[in-house]
């Protein structure tokens, strides 16, 4: 693949991701606003929708925390891709602009470009496809900081999982900018559970889980969490979450890892598929989930 094309595509992906929200997220917010019974909650949702509107018109980021960047790359991956992605992130930081968020963990010195050791974080899924597919998930700190992992005793089972998810959302309260989307990773190893919890957020709202049992669980969790009354921004109301997304993997017979990653209302994601002849197709979520 041509390095320049990848870099260019990454800049465009970041521009799409941070200045507009995916249509499924906007629809969910509009629907929530129309259903809310609390006046405070309705005004919060209206402010969010007005803000998204203004961002789109002015082509500026919907939220000032443009996050740190996680990339999912599938296709014929090679060692040069990471460099092109990093160049794209640095350019996007300058051109859009994105907020320079990336600092050294101890000295807190800012790299200024959103690129430094470890970031952007690129996750590869090599395939024999002719095309390269790149998805970006910019993640703000307000919601990322609420991430939680439990290594449950397997005997806790499904009820333990439900309780942990409910507890995590309640504990987070208004801090992750609700209404949130709840990403859940069940099984795997500890780090795989956390990674799945974030990757689960790539599936658009309204698109059911491939496993019908999990779709039911997702819907039940959504309804139950919305009974808590945390509401938009934690100021009370019917809309605490827009949805729950679950990914699973097999795990050790003596383990039951569960991870939760909350995604604020600024649920930004964008995908591009780069074909070998140079064509690029843009979308807002992986094309073949």
């Amino acid at each position: 693949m041509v390095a320049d094309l990848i870099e260019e595509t990454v800049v465009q992906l970041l521009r799409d991701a941070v200045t507009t929200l995916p249509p499924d997220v906007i629809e969910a917010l509009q629907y929530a606003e129309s259903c809310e019974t609390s006046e405070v909650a309705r005004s919060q949702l209206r402010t969010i929708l007005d803000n998204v509107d203004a961002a789109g018109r002015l082509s500026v980021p919907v939220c000032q925390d443009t996050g740190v960047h996680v990339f999912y790359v599938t296709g014929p991956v090679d060692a040069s891709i990471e460099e092109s992605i990093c160049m794209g992130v640095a350019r996007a930081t300058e051109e859009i602009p994105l907020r320079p968020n990336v600092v050294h963990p101890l000295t807190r010195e800012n790299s200024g470009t959103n690129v430094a050791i470890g970031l952007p974080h690129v996750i590869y899924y090599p395939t024999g496809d002719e095309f390269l597919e790149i998805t970006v998930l910019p993640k703000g700190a307000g919601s990322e900081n609420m991430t939680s992992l439990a290594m449950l005793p397997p005997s806790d089972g499904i009820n333990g999982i439900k309780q942990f998810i409910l507890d995590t959302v309640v504990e987070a309260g208004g801090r992750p900018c609700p209404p949130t989307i709840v990403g859940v990773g069940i099984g795997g190893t500890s780090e795989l559970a956390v990674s799945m919890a974030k990757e689960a957020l790539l599936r658009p709202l309204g698109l059911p889980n491939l496993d019908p049992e999990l779709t039911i669980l997702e819907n039940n969790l959504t309804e139950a969490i919305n009974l808590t009354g945390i509401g938009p921004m934690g100021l009370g109301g019917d809309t605490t979450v827009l949805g729950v997304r679950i990914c699973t993997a097999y795990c050790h017979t003596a383990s039951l890892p569960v991870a939760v990653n909350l995604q604020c209302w600024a649920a930004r994601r964008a995908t591009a598929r780069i074909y070998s002849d140079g064509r690029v197709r843009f979308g807002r979520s992986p094309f073949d989930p």
Partner: protein
Amino acid sequence: MILEYPLSKNKVQALQLGQIVSVSGTVFIGRDEVHMRALERRHQGKLLPVDLEDGILYHCGPIMTRDSRGWKVIAAGPTTSARMNKLEPDFIKEFGIRAIIGKGGMSRPTVEAMKEHGCVYLAFTGGAAVLAAQKITRVRGVEWLDLGMPEALWIIEADSLGPLTVAIDAHGNSLYDNVEKEVQGNLEAARLRLGL
């Protein structure tokens, strides 16, 4: 109601929980690092580059750009105030600020400090960065830019920045505490819905 800098103790004490307001005039933007450095300076007996007394502090890490005419705000929504929980009671006491704009609320020690010194917490919709930027008419200055753009101390002029909800008043009441109590009461129903 529009609140304007400088704010008096009486003025903020008259504000009621749940009231919708906006702010105009000078606003100081500061978050984690500003709190740390300001308190450090104060404990060393050094002066701050600006006087925060009777001021409005905005928990925000903005995106700014600079051209030949100076700094311009691109996006400036509120950041999570809870990160400042440990430092805020001291900050309120030492610098005499009268209002804090942020998101997510603050913990009991800050609520108590607000009651003791006369300060309120104004909740702004998290992430409403573009709407906020449109209400910021001018960037008057910046200090401590070495802390990085999101962490620097920015001095801005606002025109009806809002809508803001009085979420912690100057009498020890917090809307977040009220909602939390309601949530605790609703947990039983949520658990039942999940068959727990």
